[in-house]
């Protein structure tokens, strides 16, 4: 069973960001053609926990659960509203406090929403570099939705195209369980006699 995690940094309810994220998730499941489990991670309820993590260095129980879901995902769909020409601070904080290596090799579909289409390149100049840095495999098509797009039919086509690309990439990869940071550190440590030899 494939694990798909949808991360949305929408703030209002209803939120166009969460709406886009949900549609991307549904389209991906439809395109995948195999059984998939979809987990939605809304960042708004985790906002305090994210700030606390910055200050204390560890995750609350709920945040740890969301982080673990992302780390174990076959695919992550990450959608943010555009704030001041980039991803929102809340969105970035979630990825700032993820344990190193959590997205190594994970297939990620990026999406963004804004009030105007003039922000559409945010996917290319902000989100794609962020996930490249995190060693994710970013799907070629990202989906940007301005307010006006929700009234048209073109958005549906772009969602299906992106979801199709994500599904193809996921289906081509074996299912693997990822070790958490502690176990990765342990596996990387090697023999103590070797460490002693320097």
């Amino acid at each position, binding site marked *: 069973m494939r694990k798909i995690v949808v991360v949305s940094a929408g703030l209002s309810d209803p939120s166009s960001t969460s709406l886009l994220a949900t549609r991307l998730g549904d389209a991906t499941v439809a395109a995948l053609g195999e059984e998939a489990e979809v987990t939605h991670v809304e960042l708004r309820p985790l906002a305090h926990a994210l700030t*606390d993590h910055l200050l204390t260095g560890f995750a609350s129980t709920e945040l740890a659960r969301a982080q673990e879901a992302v780390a174990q995902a076959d695919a992550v769909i990450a959608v943010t509203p555009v704030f001041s020409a980039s991803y929102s601070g809340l969105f970035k904080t979630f990825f700032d406090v993820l344990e190193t290596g959590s997205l190594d090799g994970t297939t990620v579909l990026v999406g963004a929403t804004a009030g105007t289409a003039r922000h559409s390149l945010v996917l290319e100049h902000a989100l794609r570099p962020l996930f490249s840095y995190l060693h994710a495999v970013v799907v070629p098509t990202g989906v940007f939705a301005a307010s006006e797009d929700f009234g048209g039919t073109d958005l549906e086509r772009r969602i299906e195209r992106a979801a199709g690309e994500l599904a193809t990439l996921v289906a081509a990869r074996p299912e693997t369980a990822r070790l958490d940071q*502690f176990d990765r*550190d*342990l*596996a990387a*440590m*090697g*023999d103590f006699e070797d460490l002693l030899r*320097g």
Partner: protein
Amino acid sequence: MEYGIFTVGDVTTDPTTGRTPSEHQRIKDTVALALKAEEVGLDVFATGEHHNPPFAAPANPPVLLAHIAAKTERIKLSTSTTLITTNDPVRIAEDYAYLQHLADGRMDLMLGRGNTGPVYPWFGKDIREGIGLAIENYALLHKLWREENIDWQGKYRTPLQAFTSTPRPLDGTPPFVWHGSIRSPEIAEQAAYYGDGFFSNHIFWPAEHTARMVALYRARFEHYGHGKAEDAIVGLGGQVYLARNSQDAVREFRPYFDVAPVYGHGPSLEDFMEQTPLTVGSPQQVIERTLSFKEYAGNYQRQLFLVDHAGMPLDKVLAQLDLLGEVVAELRKHEDQPAVVEPVETPDTEGSLR
């Protein structure tokens, strides 16, 4: 089982009065804290090592510990921690052996890697070599306390030829060493390799981190043939604020908690108590919480409490120690009860640990 306190020696403004102690005051208060710890029946006093504001902890803990040794009769003196990365192991060997003689053996030490990156360049070291320094420096320290006329060569300091550190350990017995860490498995492995103690900082972190590190250390302690996993030598930190009743404890501690260095301005006191070993409450609550540590750490040998940080004035801290003395007297009555602990599982590392 040993009970004691550990201090980081922070110079912090008291948020309830706006008063900041001078370094001189903080240093003298630290001595008073240690003397009081002995008076109320605690077994251990441990000091941090720091090299930067806002700390007035000693750069070389034996300076403070030797002074306290001269003013006390019974309490054991230790560190929390001695920086194994940036101190020359030759100086550690000699300074702590000298302390061991002055204190008639009433000492041990805990090795750590420090809490701030810039400390490395202050002593000509490279933080990227932190683990390598901890491993090589301790290998040399271990040898210096056990052998004379040493020929030694390593990566991080000049070679030694026919070198004997002085003084030799008291009665030929090297000081006992704890290795302290929050989440570096190399340090748990190091402690296990030598059959030394492993101290999990425990405070400010969720218990699951401590549980995994302690389980790793115990399994590896047995692997290296030092004894059974359940007999490995484990120490834990703890953080408490005590009052006769829990409402007063919470009311008195909250102003310190809310703006404390390290965790202030973050989670609520209630959340932090749930997520970390912090216990703010009555003596009975602290007793129950402390006894619960065994449920995930197993039977352990040393419990150190943090009682004096975040700008808490000396009179409040000394009152804390009176109550902590009562708590410890009660805890000692429970020592014969076996720990209820899950069997230690060797972590699955796909054969990378041979």
